[in-house]
């Protein structure tokens, strides 16, 4: 495929998916009902107008809540993996609605893609792998704040995968091969660099390329890449369909329980929308508490925003969903990012966390 075709594909990846059939059927039925109702209504209107002849009582204004959020609609960029589950759970449970917010999830292919979209205001909030924002900070894009935590990994939440019939058995076999991550210089790259180092290789011993999680199976199948870093639920689904095999013991131990996802916004957005942010955080925390008391909720919600079947969802591995960013854990992540050359300076966590 041409570069143009490939890039168009990547742009198309941003399109979130909804079930349009149900909505089309509903619209169609409503129109049919309306047609019948219209005829009846015409009769009623004529009668009513004659009877009430100018008598009109205006209903009282509905009471306004003490101080509603500044924004009624919040657009959030999310990567469709298990990491984003609390946001979708809060949507499903109506927690955002209770706070007077309409939250619109927009699919992003990686945290890096959402950085410019947040800067221009196309997105209000965006999922981050933290690493991307450590690096953005170092590149001079300092106006970001980490406002919520989403996911802390558990062993198995991420995996490095290859073609089921591939001869690759260990990380060392990847020498000279093409390895995919969602975005270059993100936490995926950090993880792959560490895994390579563990196997006695360096970043330059492989060719790193960008492939979003949903397209990994196809890319491996076509031989475009030899291996890829995958997040759940893709690890489970692609294994289930026989499209990939997990490279055992590839990911170093200290990466298995990292805080892998949070939510970021620009500092300006945070300053201008304190009530919106607080309302969002309250609703999200409520979903995270629900998961903490009943982790199975995650299996219920994942099939609503990914292509995972319920049957497969039962096998998906996920970590925990802490509501607050953990400074100690972020420091550990930043230190790893620095040790593996993703960032050069120590990260300014105080500023990123808005302390």
């Amino acid at each position, binding site marked *: 495929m041409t570069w143009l075709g490939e890039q*168009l*594909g990547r742009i198309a990846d941003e399109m979130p998916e909804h079930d349009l059939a149900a909505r089309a059927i509903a619209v*169609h039925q409503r129109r049919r009902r309306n047609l019948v109702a219209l005829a009846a209504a015409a009769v009623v209107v004529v009668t009513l107008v004659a009877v009430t002849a100018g008598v009109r009582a205006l209903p009282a204004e509905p009471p306004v809540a003490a101080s509603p959020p500044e924004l009624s609609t919040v657009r959030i960029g999310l990567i469709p993996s298990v990491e984003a589950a609390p946001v979708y759970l809060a949507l499903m449970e109506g927690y955002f609605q209770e706070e007077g917010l309409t939250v619109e999830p927009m699919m992003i292919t990686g945290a890096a893609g959402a950085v410019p979209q947040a800067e221009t205001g196309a997105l209000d909030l965006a999922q981050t792998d933290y690493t991307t924002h450590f690096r953005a900070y170092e590149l001079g894009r300092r106006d970001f704040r980490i406002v919520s935590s989403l996911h802390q990994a558990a062993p198995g939440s991420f995996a490095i995968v290859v073609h089921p019939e591939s001869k690759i058995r260990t990380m060392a076999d990847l020498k000279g091969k093409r390895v995919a991550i969602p975005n270059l210089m993100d936490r995926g790259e950090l993880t792959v660099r560490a895994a390579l180092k563990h196997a006695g290789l360096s970043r330059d011993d492989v060719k790193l390329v960008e492939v979003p999680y949903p397209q990994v199976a196809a890319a491996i199948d076509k031989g475009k890449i030899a291996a890829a870093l995958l997040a759940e639920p893709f690890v489970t689904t692609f294994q289930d369909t026989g499209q990939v095999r997990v490279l055992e013991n590839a990911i170093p131990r200290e990466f298995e329980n990292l805080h892998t996802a949070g939510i970021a916004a620009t500092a300006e957005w945070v300053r201008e929308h304190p009530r919106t942010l607080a309302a969002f955080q309250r609703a999200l925390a409520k979903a995270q508490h629900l998961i903490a008391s009943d982790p199975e909720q995650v299996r219920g919600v994942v099939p609503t925003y990914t292509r995972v079947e319920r049957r497969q969802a039962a096998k998906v591995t996920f970590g925990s969903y802490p509501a607050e960013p953990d400074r100690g854990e972020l420091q550990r992540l930043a230190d790893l990012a620095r040790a593996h050359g993703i960032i050069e300076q120590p990260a300014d966590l105080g500023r990123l966390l808005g302390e």
Partner: protein
Amino acid sequence: MDRDAGFRAFVDAHQRPLLRLAYLLTGEAHLAEDLLQSVLVRMIGRWPKLRRVDNLDAYARKTMLNQYISWRRRRSSGEVPSAHPPDRAYTPEDSTVLRIVLRQALMRLTPKQRAVLVLRFYEDRSERDVADLLGCSVGTVKSQAHHALARLRALAPELAPRLPVLDDDPAHSEGARR
């Protein structure tokens, strides 16, 4: 209901590629949904008749393209792209930035040029196929593709080296490298 079940099965099987196409055409998630939604509502209204159509996917695509081109003509506003490339320094590995530039440039093409590019290069269809879908001649597809690529090169010179060169493009008959 049988009618709904058949329709639902069709949408399940085809909505993803159709939505992606709609998104590339409109450049905006809500517009894309609106566009496909209007096509689907139209289709369910005629579902009993449509059963006799062989290739429903092509039918949906044609309807959508048709609607998109006339729709954009009716309310062609100075379309504002949703993201701007950062003016700060960026590393060449930032493929994201090139993508934003491409996206922005695409939004400035005419609806038909955009449709031709997306069908030719994203859906990888032949000129003949594209002509059928758009209800125009192969010659029109060729000239539209040529104008569209020339305009992209003019709008975003940094993309020029990465854009395809058409085989039978009179301006580039040498060194075609698609």
